């Protein structure tokens, strides 16, 4: 299980994001979701894409550092409280969410959430036991 995510180191310079997106577009890679963490000096771009391995090679070829990692993917109901219930569950079980981002897929009844916790497998097991749908 778990979602394959590509993280890219971004220097804080003009046009960096556009450059990466353009490289991915040329390689025919579809971006499903993304988030950008920013600091005053650099950023980390996190992407869920149609072909993670190919995206990794594409980004590396532009001279950037990148890493593929596995993050927790969770499908939640698109309604008030849809996210808060599983988050409370994780919090009570002692999991800390390092970062998280969400996107709406093709089915408008659900939202997909990507989150990074220390022990992805354990968090997945907990959520699965409680009847949540995990995505990969």
């Amino acid at each position: 299980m778990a979602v394959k995510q590509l993280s890219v180191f971004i220097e804080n310079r003009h046009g960096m994001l556009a450059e990466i997106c353009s490289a991915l577009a040329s390689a025919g890679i579809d971006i499903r979701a993304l988030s950008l963490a920013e600091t005053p000096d650099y950023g980390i771009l996190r992407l869920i894409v149609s072909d993670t391995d190919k995206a990794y090679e594409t980004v590396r070829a532009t001279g950037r550092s990148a890493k593929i990692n596995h993050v927790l993917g969770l499908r939640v109901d698109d309604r008030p409280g849809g996210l808060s219930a599983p988050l409370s569950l994780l919090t009570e079980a002692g999991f800390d969410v390092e970062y998280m981002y969400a996107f709406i897929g093709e089915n408008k009844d659900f939202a997909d959430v990507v989150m990074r916790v220390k022990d992805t497998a354990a968090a997945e097991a907990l959520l699965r036991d409680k009847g949540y749908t995990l995505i990969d």
Partner: protein
Amino acid sequence: MAEQYWQKELETAPRAEIEALQLKRLKETVEREYAKVPIYRERMDSTGVRPEDIKTLDDIRRLPFTVKQDLRDTYPYGMFAVDMKDVVRLHASSGTTGKQIVVGYTANDLSVWANLIARQLTAAGIGKDDFMQVAFGYGLFTGGLGLHDGAQLVGTTVIPISTGNTARQLTVLKDFGATAICCTPSYAMYLAESAEAAGIVGDLKLRAGIFGAEPWTEEMRRQIEAKLHIKAYDIYGLTEVMGPGVSYECSCQKGMHVNEDHFIVEIIDPDTCEPVPDGEYGEIVYTSLTKEAFPVIRYRTRDIGMITREPCACGRTFARMSKPRGRTDDMLIIRGVNVFPSQIETVLINLGYAPNYQIIVDRVNNLDTFEVRVEISDENFDDSVAALAAREKKITEAMRSLLGIGPKITLVNPRSIARSEGKAKRVIDLRKLTD
């Protein structure tokens, strides 16, 4: 394998014999300088020292120093000590720290030089059966032709590729089966990274490298050795004194043997000009003993190093000089603290970063700013802002504990800091200071 020597009797001569030869040659050099080089004669006259006052080696301290500015003031040929018809070649310094200077060689000077390079190659086990890629620049720079002549004298198959075109360098290394290479250490590192990226390290036959012409650290040596599976030797020299081969390293890698039959080395306190004891750092000063066209007396190199006269396990009796810590020119004074780029390099390598970095110094509101740009590789890139911030902090603190001053660390893309094919540009000093 037993230690090999090019000129064993000279390289392993008893100290007393070396010193007797030095004194004889020093007297001859001073006489020649006094007779042929007006600026030197005037300077000796003004300090009241005559050639016949040189009676012992210690009397060298009575002689005036020569500094780079003298070479500029007498540019182009004012310090040549022979008729130009006897000069068979010219070389020039790159002029990176000011106006260029020009030096000359007689046929005999070139022959001595080639023999001194041959001593280095032989000490590194490079001989007739070897193929050496000379990736130092050919031309006015002394590196290319200097190593070339020495390698040819030894009988090594020379591959005179000069600098540049890394892809071609790798192809030639591989296809021609080079077993040895010489270039600047920063370029060796770049070639090593490029060979790794191309996945061809295993196809190379390289086993030795001769690196010099810029300061580098022991840590960088170990990295080059590990990446290219070679033994890396350090060679020292400077255009003003001769070029590479003034001192050379044996297989012990414990300092560079000074070719004392051709040069006298002194270490002085750069401020007081007083001698510094063996084993202590100071400015390296060289006097040539056999050079005909362009002799130098007490040339202040501005390199900071130390020497030892302890016997070396290789059997050579020549004094050894440490890897220079850097040139006094390279030393940065940031907020009153002395910083050598080599110290930055040591910290980065010890923490697992590439020895490619850039130091940027500026002055904002009368306060020096100190920034070090560090490349972040895939291995060092963590998918977490907190982890990257922790990395920056760790580098800053390691530098602060070594230097007493902590830089701001800026993480940049891997292999994005320009690799030079000649000498690396490590420092960008944007301070506009007026006296």
